[in-house]
């Protein structure tokens, strides 16, 4: 058996388990937790496009979640447009917003971009909380929208039971992972990598770093907004404090960072490890020890950043490769190519 075959086998196995899980697991609570887990993995993977590959630190992705959720909800509630269509519109709006923030800040270093994204997303939240009508669109201020569960069906992005949502978010996650894989192997991916690691050297080689980052930002915000629509249709209730909150932005960034920025598996791994922690600590200690999961998050984040700045995926990938070596019986003589990431 070669290394590639094993990798392929493992991937297929994961895929089969992921698709087959709802057939075995009938408890809606666990399905709900799984759906949120995939959703967060999706968020972090699309965050990773700009936060990981481009080497900057966006801390306002909740703004794009909000734009996606609000656009599709408003269009479907007030104009009868299918949320699927609204999802695309929201994505485009979010991409425009992303470019607008990136335009002045990508030319500057380090912290400015992080600060601008925070200010932008907080600004959007304050606006939404204060405006009832934006032109012909009703925004409903701080109370947000309750989406009435009628007109159930595929066209309206509304289903009974959790299974359809499970498959939608799973397909979305696989899609965004494939997209990330494709980007990381493309010219843009190399540009981004170069610009993130050594901006001066990259620019000296004639790479337009700012432009590459802008494209990544547009893609990332577009993809994030798509999941915003999913969130709205899944929970059927959105309000500024839930979809545009700073906490959401930070959680997305944290999970991706702990998992490992700039790799494909890292953000998913982060969600896989941390979402259950937060869900179960909320279930079991939510009443007695409030905020415990955030303390765990913070501590893990600090420790990971000090001891494994590239995230948890790095040691795990190494362990995985060593395991493969053992299975194959190859000796590590430098010929082993560590391709899997």
């Amino acid at each position, binding site marked *: 058996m070669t290394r590639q075959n094993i990798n392929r086998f493992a991937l297929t196995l994961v895929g089969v388990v992921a698709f087959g899980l709802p057939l075995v697991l009938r408890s809606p609570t666990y399905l709900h937790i799984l759906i949120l887990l995939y959703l967060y993995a999706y968020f972090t993977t699309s965050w990773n496009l700009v936060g990981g590959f481009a080497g900057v630190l966006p801390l306002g992705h909740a703004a794009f979640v909000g734009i996606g959720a609000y656009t599709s909800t408003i269009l479907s509630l007030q104009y009868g447009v299918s949320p699927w269509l609204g999802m695309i519109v929201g994505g485009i709006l979010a991409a425009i917003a992303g470019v607008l923030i990136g335009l002045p800040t990508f030319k500057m270093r380090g912290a400015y971009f992080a600060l601008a994204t925070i200010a932008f997303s907080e600004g959007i939240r304050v606006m939404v909380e204060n405006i009832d009508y934006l032109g012909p669109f009703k925004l409903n201020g701080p109370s947000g929208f309750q989406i009435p569960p009628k007109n159930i069906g595929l066209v309206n992005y509304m289903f009974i039971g959790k299974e359809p949502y499970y498959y939608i978010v799973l397909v979305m996650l696989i899609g965004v992972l494939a997209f990330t894989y494709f980007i990381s192997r493309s010219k843009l991916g190399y540009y981004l990598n170069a610009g993130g690691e050594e901006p001066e050297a990259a620019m000296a080689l004639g790479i337009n770093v700012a432009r590459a980052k802008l494209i990544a930002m547009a893609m990332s915000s577009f993809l994030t907004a798509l999941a915003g629509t999913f969130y709205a249709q899944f929970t059927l209730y959105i309000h500024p404090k839930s979809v545009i909150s700073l906490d959401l932005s930070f959680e997305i960034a944290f999970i991706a960072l702990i998992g490992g920025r700039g790799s494909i598996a890292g953000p998913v791994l982060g969600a896989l490890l941390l979402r259950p922690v937060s869900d179960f600590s909320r279930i079991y200690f939510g009443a007695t020890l409030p905020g415990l999961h955030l303390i765990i998050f*913070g501590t893990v984040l600090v420790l990971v950043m000090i001891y494994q700045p590239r995230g948890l995926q790095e040691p795990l990938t190494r362990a995985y490769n060593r395991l493969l070596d053992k299975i194959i019986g190859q000796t590590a003589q430098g010929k082993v190519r560590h391709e899997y990431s």
Partner: protein
Amino acid sequence: MGSIYGLTALGLTIIFGVLKVINFAHGSLLMVGMYVAYWAIVFTGLHPYISLIIVVPVMYFFGFYLQDIVIKPIFKAEKDVREPITVIIVTTGVWYILDNLTLLIFGPQYRGIQDNPLRGKMIEFGEMMISVPKLWGFVAAVITAAAVYWFFQKTRMGRAIRATSLDREAASLMGINQFKVYNVAFGIGTATAGIAAVTLVPFYNIFPTVGVLFDIKGFIIVVLGGLGSIGGAILGGIIIGLIESIGPQFMTATWTEAIVYGLFLLVLFVKPSGLFGVKYDW
């Protein structure tokens, strides 16, 4: 109020000026300072402002060791990076830990000082009514800024700090222990947050997430005033404070918040180095 924003921003700008990182945990440090001040006042029954003699050293060493234990390893690991993003991330982690630890220990309730000699005191100033604790806040802000400025200009340590902030490699070649400088700078930044906390305590509620408000305002102010500029921090704070106090005369109070964010983005577009910032490479 604006001057207290300024004080908070002052600590941020000191830390940024030297370490080249935004300290995202700054609001939490302010919160910690407020709790320290609160307990100092409650246990000893001191006049709120006298609690400074407890709060400032406590906060200084808190910041000193926070930097020494948590942040230093990263600087050691990433020697050649000029503005390590990793440090921002770590301070964010510290923010979460501090806020939620406080929530865990002290609970979510709002606290305020009972039998407070300063509560609601006003002085008349022509036609204006000025709240006494806020006036003292302004005085404290000006004195602190002047003291920090003097310290940076005149003392040996201050010179070392400035040298490190210009070029940390050259400074360490000159025999300056850059990590010690970082510790001291972080300690001073935290101590100014402590001063801000003491001036806040007499008229502001204390709760675990109080820092977040000041955190984001602080970021806006330091960018507005120019990252790393001491005068810019105070002035930026006063500008934001003015907008917030005059704004509600003309519109609902929440709208002024939106204006503040709008102003911030405008400054980023038009003059990213801020009002008083130095216009080189960031």
